[in-house]
């Protein structure tokens, strides 16, 4: 048990870490998820990033127990997760949908009651969430009459109502306008500040970068990177931008430096050997004027491309 922290830490208060270990799923010959391990610490917002078909949805469905696990395990608070634990998690599946012909309020109360809430508690929770997400006046409308964005909000309420002890959300931000993204992010942060571990998938890397304390990058069924955005950046090769007065083509021949892109007088460089930048800069000054030489903070998109390449 030493490799995943002591129990006091993982079950802080009534909250627990969500962890997957060596998770695998085969669909016939195809291995969709291949030995995936990561932890969603209690109280953290963890972004689950990966391209289409990377295995995000499959992993989340296995975490929630709606897809059987070929091998590996899901842990809750350091022990194998049970159906009773899952009952206390909020889940938002990949494909959206609710009962199209039932009023918003009625079906959210129904879903709340299925999770063990009393009718009164479910009702007040639904109403306060509707109010908060700007849907208070739509409570009596049939779901099919709502716009897709509003249906998405209703779906989010279904996941977060009733004090879930953990949240697993598949693409919760897709289809939301920037304002809705913000109120949704606030809502999620409120849950994490209460100690709830939140795992959400997204392809919107800028959004993930802005929101998450923790990241898991999945590619072709495997975890290719995990950590905080800063940790991920530190693993990335440092890049510099060089702008000269003359043509920059010669930088291709400098040892210990890889020219990622050269365009006229500017170049994007990776310093492969520490100290190589000194030689580079010396040579540049010898040849003429240096207008800019600056380290580039890699974007998550760039890291993502690197780690999934």
């Amino acid at each position: 048990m030493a490799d995943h922290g002591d129990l006091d830490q993982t079950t802080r208060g009534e909250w627990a870490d969500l962890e997957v270990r060596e998770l695998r799923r085969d669909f016939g010959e195809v291995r969709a998820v291949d030995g995936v391990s990561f932890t969603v610490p209690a109280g953290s917002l963890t972004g689950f990033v990966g391209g289409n078909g990377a295995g995000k949805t499959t992993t989340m469905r296995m975490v929630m127990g709606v897809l059987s696990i070929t091998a590996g395990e899901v842990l809750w608070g350091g022990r194998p997760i049970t159906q009773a634990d899952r009952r206390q998690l909020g889940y938002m599946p990949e494909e959206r949908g609710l009962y199209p012909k039932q009023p918003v309020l009625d079906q959210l109360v129904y879903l709340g009651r299925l999770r063990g809430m009393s009718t009164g508690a479910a009702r007040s929770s639904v109403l306060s969430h509707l109010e908060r997400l700007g849907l208070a006046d739509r409570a009596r409308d049939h779901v099919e009459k709502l716009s897709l964005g509003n249906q998405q909000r209703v779906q989010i309420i279904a996941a977060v109502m009733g004090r879930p002890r953990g949240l697993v959300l598949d693409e919760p931000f897709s289809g939301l306008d920037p304002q809705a993204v913000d109120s949704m992010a606030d809502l999620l942060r409120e849950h994490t500040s209460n100690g709830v571990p939140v795992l959400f998938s997204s392809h919107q890397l800028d959004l993930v970068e802005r929101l998450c304390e923790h990241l898991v990058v999945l590619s072709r069924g495997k975890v290719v990177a995990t950590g905080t955005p800063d940790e991920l950046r530190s693993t990335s090769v440092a890049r510099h931008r060089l702008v000269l007065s003359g043509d920059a083509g010669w930088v291709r021949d400098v040892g210990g430096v890889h020219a990622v892109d050269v365009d006229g007088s500017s170049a994007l460089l990776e310093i492969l050997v520490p100290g190589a930048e000194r030689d580079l800069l010396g040579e540049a000054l010898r040849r003429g004027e240096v207008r800019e030489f600056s380290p580039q903070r890699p974007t998550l998109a760039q890291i993502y491309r690197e780690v999934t390449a």
Partner: protein
Amino acid sequence: MTTTQPTPPARLPRQQPPAPGRDAHTAPGLDASRSDTPPWLIVATREIVVRATNRAFIISTLLTLALIAGFGAFSLWQSSRTTTYTVAVSAPEGARLVSDAAATARQDDDTVAIEARTVAGEPAARALVEGGDAAAWLHAGGEGWTLTSADEVPLGLRTAVESAVRSAALETNAASAGTSVEALERGTTVAVARFDGEAIDAGFVQVATIAFALLFLMAAMLFGQQIAASVVEEKQSRLVEIIATAIPLRHLLAGKVGGNSVIALGQVVLFAAVGLVAVSFSEWSTLLPALSTAVVWFVLYFIVGFFALACLFAVAGALASRMEDLQSTTAPLTTALMLVYFASFGLSGTAAVIASYVPIASVVSMPARILAGETAWWEPIVSLGIMAAFAAVTVVIGEKIYRRSLLQTRGRLSWREAYTAPE
């Protein structure tokens, strides 16, 4: 000085702001916000509410009720209207019998009048009957009398004439046997107690059987398809994934089957009750006790049979991934139901007896046999037991397939694939 006293400190705690992030929905205190209602009951309640408030359901129920009530009203109107039957006779004995029959008929039902019209012989009688001026021709034939008509002799007329002929024959026979009519009458009273109208009885059984078969087929098809559709709806929208993480799938199935069974049963009981009232106004009202017994059995069979079918329809829904798949996954069930429907009134003799023990077919066949008075007391009980066993096995196997296929979202599954699929 009392006026300088500070604000009582008792008010202070109320002014404290709530803990951050803990609004109404996240407030602790599980007692009032939690509920112990079993999940299947929550599901069943929703099913009932959704079905009962569905406009199409309400309209179709009302229409069917109107149809049944309309039959009752028609029967009532029919029976309150004085019907006069003209009987052609070609002999004075015939005319006397007809006037006896008229007296009997009036005694039974004061809306029936019978009058005799003397004709010369068969050709004249035939012309009169075929021309619609007489209902039948009463003439001596063989040992007794024959009532010849163009197509069918009206029930009231036939009963009355039969009774009159019998009385007259009795009188003659009694006299020739040197005994009194009273001595013989007890034996004949039974024969005249309308249980001898075998042809009519069989027709009535036939009509009632078709009614049972229609009721069952309608309910099974309508509710069966709705159950299957509601399962696919949840599956297609992935709502089932949310539900599956909240409650065991067994509860979802139980709630669906239970809720729909309750509402289907409610509808059938309503139809049956209105139907019985309608029959009480019809010419078959004397058969009401026998019919009521059969209806009670029908309802019992319906409960058990519908439960098994509802479960199978839920499985058929779980096998599909989209609404478009439903037609093919429910095909085995609809075919079986159609077979049951046609078998229920197409079979006779031994085949009908066998059908009354075959689960699902027995829902219609056994009450029909009970109505016809063909069954020993233990037969319905054994047959119902067989069906209950069938339903139990169906529910167990169905639940297994349902669970295995409900979360499979990759296309349509066959029944066999779903049964052998890993969980």
